[in-house]
């Protein structure tokens, strides 16, 4: 169950990890808007490269590269798809670039979108994130649901493993049989898991009520997120990025590889 290892967040400290999640989210949003504004390959390349300093400062290179690898399947698909359609009807390509350049650009744009979110999640721990949610105007019920879900992921994963063991010990062979049989093999695992989840949520509800859930409309908070110098810097960077992107889009003629290469 190594997938769920990622949820066991270690308390890492770096200039990026320590940033207020709301500010990081703003930055990601700006990245998103900027990426969507452009079809031009050189610009998208710049946007992609802009993420690398953040990744390095946060020290999450290995995980980031792993998420890049994970995205490759869809990226390749997008590339091929756009390439085919580009060749079929080259007149529909904006900017009049070659189908090859366009396909690269679209694939890269997707990568920029995905990777900026990836950096956000890699540098924000679940408790930090839930705290940010609490302090934004998100209703507490949603934040609580989010936090509780994250809290119980490793528990449910372990329970699924125990249930699988219990059924294997009764002769259940998950790998045997044709496709339909294999799906049915999972019923003895899913049902106990679901029943257990329902029982668990009942116990949780009892505990919540017994500790004053709903006592006051104005919940107070043990922690408070305070914006520091680094956060303001990131806000400034984001604003500069947004303004530059708008300026470049409307006032700067952009070179494309098609133009630069000899015909």
């Amino acid at each position, binding site marked *: 169950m*190594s997938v769920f290892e990622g949820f066991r967040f270690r308390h890492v400290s770096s200039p990026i990890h320590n940033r207020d999640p709301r500010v990081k989210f703003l930055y990601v949003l700006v990245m998103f808007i900027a990426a969507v504004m452009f079809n031009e390959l050189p610009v998208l390349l710049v946007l992609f490269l802009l993420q690398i300093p953040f990744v390095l400062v946060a020290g999450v290179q290995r995980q980031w590269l792993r998420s890049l690898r994970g995205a490759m399947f869809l990226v390749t698909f997008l590339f091929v798809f756009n390439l085919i359609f580009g060749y079929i009807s080259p007149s529909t390509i904006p900017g009049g670039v070659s189908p090859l350049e366009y396909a690269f650009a679209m694939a890269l744009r997707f990568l920029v979108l995905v990777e900026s979110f990836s950096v956000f999640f890699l540098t924000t721990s679940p408790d930090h994130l839930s705290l940010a949610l609490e302090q934004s105007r998100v209703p507490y019920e949603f934040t609580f649901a989010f936090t509780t879900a994250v809290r119980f992921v490793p528990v449910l994963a372990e*329970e699924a493993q*125990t*249930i699988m*063991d*219990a*059924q*294997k*010990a*009764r*002769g*259940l*062979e998950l790998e045997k049989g044709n496709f339909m049989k294999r799906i049915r093999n999972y*019923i*003895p695992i899913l*049902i*106990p898991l679901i*029943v*257990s989840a329902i*029982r668990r949520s009942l116990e949780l509800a009892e505990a919540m009520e017994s500790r004053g859930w709903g006592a006051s409309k104005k919940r107070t908070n043990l922690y408070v997120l305070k914006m520091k110098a680094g956060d303001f810097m990131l806000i400034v960077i984001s604003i500069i990025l947004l303004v530059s992107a708008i300026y470049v889009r409307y006032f700067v003629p952009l070179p494309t590889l098609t133009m630069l290469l000899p015909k």
Partner: protein
Amino acid sequence: MIEVKDVHFTYPTGVEALKGVSLSIRNGEFVAIMGQNGAGKTTLVKQFNGLLKPTKGEVLVDGVSTRDISIAQLARKVGFVFQNPDHQLFSETVEEEIAFALRNFGFKENTLKRRVTWALNLLGLTEYRKTSPFMLSGGERKRVALASVLAWNPKVIILDEPTIGQDHRQKEILRQFIVQMNAQGKTVVIVTHDVEFVAECSPRVVLMAQGQIVADGDAKRILTDPDITLRAAIVPPQITQIFLGLTDLGLPTNVIDVSEATKVLLEYLEGGKR
């Protein structure tokens, strides 16, 4: 016959749960694997039916290494009753639940029907044959889980923490049941930290601490030895604790049972009178 040969086991998370465990269990024995939570008891017994395979060393069941046969094949011989029955109940009726394993093992329909009826009778569940297992009480669900394992008549039966959440009466019934199964020739292995329960059953005790076996032998000998119980961080039975507090009067300390304690004290007093 189960043989554990210098077994080491490390979980994928890196936790080393077994650090060189060796042990033999003969057919028809009654063994209690004891120790604190986290000592490695459950990790050890999961090696017996192949759910876990040793990272180093080997486990032989009837002469065959657990690495060489499938879990399903091992399960046929080694039945495992998990601590929480809710981790296995999923059928629409108790009947179906008991039949599940029998179907997995390829029993013919006639034999299957007979076995199900037999198991229902044995555990006093006949009236619940067509009931949904989810409608039953906690104690009844435990019996369904036990019935579903006994139905296929494994040679060895492992019970993981069978006394948790049980009241005194339920534990007494369980104890008698275990004795009965053992008398019928089954090898019974219980994993438990319930010292009082073990004191009443008096089986062979294998005491574990931090992934190793620290003692293996007669329940009375082990549970009354203060050095051993300290090492394994377990609490001796209450009767033993009483006698450990009276050693200066020349009383023996290897007493775990209430009736025996009464006898010993009466004899001591008789002796005093003379």
